[in-house]
């Protein structure tokens, strides 16, 4: 076992982690721990753009962007946070340009901008050109640019290290910590994939930037490595997860594969059609049609298929039509996604429409933070020295449905804020806090138990069963019945998980072992997602309950806070239980206790959401 000491430790080297590293490393001794080489992170798969009201091509301002973000999130957005994000978006884009990001340019040489779903002029009048972009590989350029600047600043990386535990000076799973009492994060425990060695990192400030958990679903745009590690670690250590029932299904995944085709395809003029060739979005969102927010488009597509108007031999997808666009325009603006259609489906988008269907894409929920990235341990108190940014976090700027481009924005704005806050805190925090005795104990036991189990079920079988039940029962359309089915399956799978075994018993580069550990994370995230979805008996943004199809502001205009607690713990999450959020779901050996947190409202009254 090796022990390291840093001022700031950042877990994850995607956009949020590296943006934070650029801030923190210039002020404090910083290490970035990542389970992948930084340039493999899934930020690189983002395509369409990053919105900021630069007004380079038409009138725009950050207040409209704020409004769109709040309305897009179906009013579950914390309005102060959305305002910060929209305001700081402009500098976030300019920061990236100064770092070298090769944005597409206007004829005048400014950063070019294009339309994107849900982004409008003057509070919904018409689509506005707000997304700054680099062809359809904006995320790739952001990831590369941030990594390039980390190389420039000589940021220290621990690549292919898996963080498997978070260390704090109070055990929040069992201790009743009083309101206002101090809880400190003290370090993380990591596993070096190459050698199998355990490393303990002691730190004054820790930033989780571990990304999402799309692999709880079968059909997803997410990488194999997006297994909710950071969320699950926080949850296991007694920290709440916020708004986990809200998962975004991106409308245009390649049918059957889930590979993302950017919303930019529609921003550049692409049209969704059903089997009859009808532009069906005209019926669902008469004003902005195909550029309605993703939850609405995804539901509309699923509805077309359900009502028998799907295309293809099994009538199970709709068509993304680009055939009316000039091939040269497609090549200039959408080169990568059209290549995906050619490579993976053998479809030529110049002349044929592309089969598409919604694909699990983005977790709106996550580890709750304030606008400086500080992690909350309940509705009011922060964990000192613990920060989160990016998809792992819930600020909440996305509410119940994230607008396209706002994730690349989120990682840049809140990655920067978290990095800056963590470094500032580390500088004033005094000496490192003591680590618990034998800090790696839990990780070592977990790994040894998994490695030593001689014979059992295959990881892949349990994972496939999880992904299939989530797709079948917790996807675009949900009911109490389907969610109960998913929950029953997850209970069963949690039991089966205790009996999975790995074939590779070695120390070196044991991906078999790590996949088994990641499956444990996936099960925990699926569990909390479904429990929160069962409790929210309304439809809002990405969470659609067919048995409760209306939004219910009177009872559910609150963030869900889900805690995992021992069976013997009190049933009250944080002393502030609100009527419809007092659910407790018992599991074998623990329970999930729900609570709530108010939504911050500043100037926007919730309205009916029409486009």
């Amino acid at each position, binding site marked *: 076992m090796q022990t390291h000491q840093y001022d700031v430790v950042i877990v994850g080297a995607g956009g949020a982690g590296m943006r934070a590293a650029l801030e923190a490393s210039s002020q404090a001794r910083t290490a970035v721990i990542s389970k*992948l*080489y930084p*340039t*493999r*992170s*899934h930020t*690189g*798969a983002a395509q369409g753009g990053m919105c900021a009201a630069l007004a380079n091509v038409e009138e725009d301002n950050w207040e409209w962007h704020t409004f769109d973000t709040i309305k897009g999130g179906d009013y579950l957005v914390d309005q102060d946070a959305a305002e910060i994000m929209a305001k700081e978006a402009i500098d976030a*884009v*300019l920061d990236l*340009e*100064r*770092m*070298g990001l*090769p*944005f*597409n*340019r*206007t*004829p*005048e*040489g*400014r*950063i070019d901008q294009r339309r994107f779903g849900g982004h409008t002029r003057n509070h919904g009048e018409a689509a506005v050109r707000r997304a700054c972009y*680099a062809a359809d*590989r904006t995320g*790739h*350029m952001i990831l*590369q640019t941030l990594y*390039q*600047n980390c*190389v*420039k600043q000589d940021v220290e990386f621990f690549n292919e290290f898996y963080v498997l535990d978070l260390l704090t000076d109070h055990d929040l799973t069992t201790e009743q910590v009083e309101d206002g009492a101090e809880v400190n994060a003290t370090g993380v425990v990591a596993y070096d994939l*190459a050698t199998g060695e355990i490393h303990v990192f002691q730190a004054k400030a820790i930033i989780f930037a571990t990304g999402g958990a799309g692999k709880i679903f079968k059909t997803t745009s997410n*990488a*194999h*490595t997006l297994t909710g590690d950071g969320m699950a670690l926080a949850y296991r250590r007694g920290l709440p997860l916020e708004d986990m029932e809200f998962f975004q299904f991106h409308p245009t995944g390649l049918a*059957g*594969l889930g*590979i993302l085709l950017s919303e930019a395809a529609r921003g550049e003029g692409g049209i969704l059609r059903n089997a009859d060739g009808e532009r069906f979005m005209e019926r669902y969102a008469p004003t902005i049609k195909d550029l309605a927010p993703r939850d609405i488009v995804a539901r509309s597509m699923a509805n077309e298929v359900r009502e028998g108007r799907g295309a*293809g*031999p*099994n009538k199970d997808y709709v068509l993304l039509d680009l055939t009316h666009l000039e091939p040269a325009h497609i090549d200039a603006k959408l080169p*990568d996604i059209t290549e*995906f259609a050619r*490579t*993976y*489906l053998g479809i030529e988008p110049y002349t044929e429409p592309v089969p598409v269907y919604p694909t699990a894409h983005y977790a709106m929920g996550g580890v709750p933070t304030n606008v400086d990235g500080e992690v909350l341990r309940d509705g009011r108190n922060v964990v000192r020295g613990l920060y989160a940014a990016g998809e792992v976090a819930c600020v909440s700027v996305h509410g119940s449905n994230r607008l396209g481009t706002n994730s690349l924005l989120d990682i840049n704005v809140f990655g920067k804020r978290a990095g800056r806050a963590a470094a500032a805190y580390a500088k004033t925090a005094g000496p490192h806090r003591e680590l618990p005795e034998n800090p790696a104990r839990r990780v070592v036991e977990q790994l040894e138990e998994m490695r030593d189990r001689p014979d059992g079920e*295959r*990881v*892949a079988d349990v994972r496939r069963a999880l992904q299939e039940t989530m797709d079948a029962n917790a996807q675009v359309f949900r009911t109490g019945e389907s969610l109960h089915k998913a929950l029953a399956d997850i209970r069963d799978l949690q039991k089966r998980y205790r009996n999975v075994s790995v*074939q*590779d018993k*070695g*120390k*070196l*580069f*044991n*991906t*078999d072992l790590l996949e088994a550990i990641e499956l444990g994370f996936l099960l925990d995230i699926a569990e909390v997602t479904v429990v929160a979805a069962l409790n929210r008996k309304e439809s809002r943004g990405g969470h659609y309950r067919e048995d409760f199809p209306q939004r219910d502001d009177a009872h559910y205009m609150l963030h869900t806070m889900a805690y995992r607690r021992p069976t013997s713990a009190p049933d009250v999450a944080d002393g502030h239980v609100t009527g419809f959020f007092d659910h407790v779901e018992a599991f074998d050996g623990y329970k999930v206790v729900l609570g709530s947190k108010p939504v911050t409202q500043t100037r926007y009254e919730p309205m009916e959401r029409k486009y």
Partner: protein
Amino acid sequence: MTAVLENPASEPAVGAVPSFEVTLRIRRYNPESVHGDEATWDEFTVTAHGTDRVLDALHKIKWELDGSLTFRRSCAHGVCGSDAMRINGRNRLACKTLLKDVNPDKPIIVEPIKGLPVVKDLVVDMEPFFASYREIMPFLVTTGNEPSRERIQSAEDRARFDDTTKCILCAACTSSCPVFWTDGQYFGPAAIVNAHRFIFDSRDEGAAQRLEILNDKEGVWRCRTTFNCTEACPRGIEVTKAIQEVKRAMITRAF
């Protein structure tokens, strides 16, 4: 070792796309195994569907036949650069290579990329590759005050280096280069591609320094223009052309 996997009955019907049997012959290396430092070959036969990629077959083997088979992968659609490997003698991304396109009638030969130390099975040590990348100053170099708005760059100037911005650092090009195989000190195509990306960026002021670095005896002049790199690039970058442009810039000092 030969293992055969039946198509599980639970597999959903995949429309009109036919399934077929495919055999992968995979180079194995695991210093912890009984074979020690000796590489061996294993054959696995799995059932694949029409649109399956080599990565799908590798996953099927790992998940259902031999959990110890080791390879890197992440995004699974050709943008993260994790799974470059030698497939039937050519460097490709496993997630971007459809089985039906590599003649599944014969065993498909899968090996790690060449020229980098093998760690285990298809996993190589990427550190030497990234070290070369870091050496060519892969970041925008500017002098003077930061502008308050964006730097102005014409669409033509932006287009000048567009091709080389596509690089995902998968190492398919560098590890296909015969010069790199024989001389691991050579910077290799990927590092030069990333130097190109900045040398020809109108906003950058570090070109002279980068050209100096690449004028080294292990630099751009080692390139013998065999075009392996261009053929290997899964992003369609004209790698050899980019290297030629860097060579020319070194002579003319025009960029």
